[in-house]
């Protein structure tokens, strides 16, 4: 059974059909990539799955549960975490604090217990710390643990954002352009980490990416989207050689 299944998804902003009838299934344990030119509606699909946007029509089913009407703040609890195209970290906090917010859904203590620092708050804190330390180890962030985000280089922030998403202990992780703005070396590291997430953590990855070297290196399947409509679905090589995809990117031969 597929982990995430999107059926005939569409969102219209006035007359603009940002996403128009996209359907796909993501199998548990695969790396599924959405590619497409700028403005194709890739990030909008992510925002629909994160429930930031209400689809005009269509259905999103995660692990057998219809999430088309679930509030956005319940999505993480269900097991879907995400990163953002333009890094959305908590700039005035340390890396550690950022990751601990990632573990927010795991807390059990209420705010009253938090203010009084009762035993449940403390045990929450210990558990969150332990989980977060594992992720820090996993993504090699130990050197930055207590550094403020505002002072970190761009490449590290990208990794911290993934780490924060992992702190949710998701089953599905949505990566919105994980390699944008990264150097070749950092992109290679990213490819390894995506592989590790898949193999070591058993995660399913849904990714939007422009860097075709990364896409070909890690993707099991690729979906090409153009102007809100699905164009081609297959392996990375198949999609890249599809004449319609080439046309969409480069235009028709004169």
């Amino acid at each position, binding site marked *: 059974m597929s982990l995430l299944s999107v059926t005939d998804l569409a969102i219209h902003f006035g007359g603009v059909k940002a996403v128009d009838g996209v359907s796909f299934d993501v199998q548990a344990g695969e790396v599924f990539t959405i590619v497409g030119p700028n403005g194709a509606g890739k990030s909008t699909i992510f925002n629909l799955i994160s429930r*930031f946007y209400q689809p005009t029509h269509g259905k999103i089913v995660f692990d057998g549960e219809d999430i088309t009407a679930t509030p956005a703040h*319940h999505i993480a609890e269900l097991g879907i975490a995400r990163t953002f195209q333009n890094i959305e970290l908590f700039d005035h906090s340390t890396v550690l604090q950022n990751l601990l*917010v990632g573990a927010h859904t795991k807390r059990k*203590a209420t*705010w009253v217990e*938090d203010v009084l620092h009762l035993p449940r708050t403390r045990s929450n804190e210990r558990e969150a710390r332990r989980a977060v330390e594992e992720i820090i180890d996993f993504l090699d962030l130990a050197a930055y643990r207590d550094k403020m985000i*505002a002072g970190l280089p761009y490449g590290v922030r990208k990794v911290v954002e993934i780490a924060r998403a992992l702190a949710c202990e998701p089953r599905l992780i949505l990566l919105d352009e994980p390699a944008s703005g990264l150097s070749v070396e950092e992109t290679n590291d990213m490819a390894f980490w995506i592989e590790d997430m898949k193999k070591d953590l058993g995660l399913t990855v849904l990714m939007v990416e422009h860097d075709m070297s990364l896409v070909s290196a890690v993707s099991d399947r690729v979906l090409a989207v153009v102007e809100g409509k699905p164009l081609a679905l297959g392996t990375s090589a198949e999609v890249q050689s599809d004449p319609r995809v080439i046309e969409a990117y480069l235009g028709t031969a004169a």
Partner: protein
Amino acid sequence: MRVHFKRSYDEDIRLFEDWRRMAKYAVLLAIMIALPALVSGYFLGEVTLVLIYCIAGMGLMVLAGHTGQISLGHAAFMAIGAFSNLWFMDQGMPFLIALPLSAIFTGVVGAIVALPILRLSGIYLAIATLALSIIVEDIAIIAEPYTGGVVGVFAPPIEFFGTMVDRYGTPNLFYWMCLALVVLVTLGYANLLRSATGRSFLAVRDSEVSARALGVNVTRTKALAFGLSCGVTGIAGALYAHFVQVVNYESFLVLLSINLLLLVVIGGLGSIHGAFFGAIVVGLLPQGLSILRDFLQGTVGLDISAYPGLDTMVFAVIIIGMVIYEPLGLYGFYMKVKTQWQLFPLARRDMFRRSKSYLKTERLR
């Protein structure tokens, strides 16, 4: 510079980094407890006022500093705290019950008001809360049975198990009571900041979008922050009522709201220390200026009281200077000096240059 080797997660969770830091705060607390023996009654009264400002400042700091929601209407919540406290006491409740009740009442009112108001952000939120402050001024006149109308309400004496606590009769006891409340509120605040709830506040401040994606209920978090903030401010309001002994609508004008906001900005947004630094400045500056005035008149013979508005101008200059040169407030300045001292002679000037922030997703707002 000392480096801490941590051996357990608890060492990170606990309030004090090490025994030195704990000792520092213990010494400070001891001095504060011994203060009535060290200073005159007049000065003790001023310090009591500063303590009340500390509580109000911490109330606003939770909201403005840690949740990133500006409020220009916190005098309104001081008023609600003050009037409700006096009303509860008027119904025959002892202060020990009336104070928490009025805090809860103010907090609940705050949370309810927050739900519609916090849909706004930035300057619009500031305007809405400003309006709130003005409305409450009027309500304080109209709701005469509860607030005494234009005349106001006299604060009944506080009684703790047979001991009278009165601002003038027993200033020391009143001071210690305020000090105890400051310590309690500070502890609660520090606990909040080291917990998931506190981090969700920071998350909402820095990026609502990713807070939501991580499972933080943004609306609920904002309402909770507003409610907690108002509850604490209500405590300050109640203490203020007992401090000045009689309160009416004029005790909580918009000017007080603005002073509270200045307090947190001058002190340093986003730190508990900031609320204390700010309270010291806002609470003592007017007195400091009048002492300076007397001093100048006595020594140089310069009579600055001949120039009305000079106090306000000095106050304004300090604030403008603060905003331009030290946006992180007094606490930011303190941290800067401390870091420079610790690294001496290796500190560099551009270490404290503000880092540029990368583009944020605007589309999802």
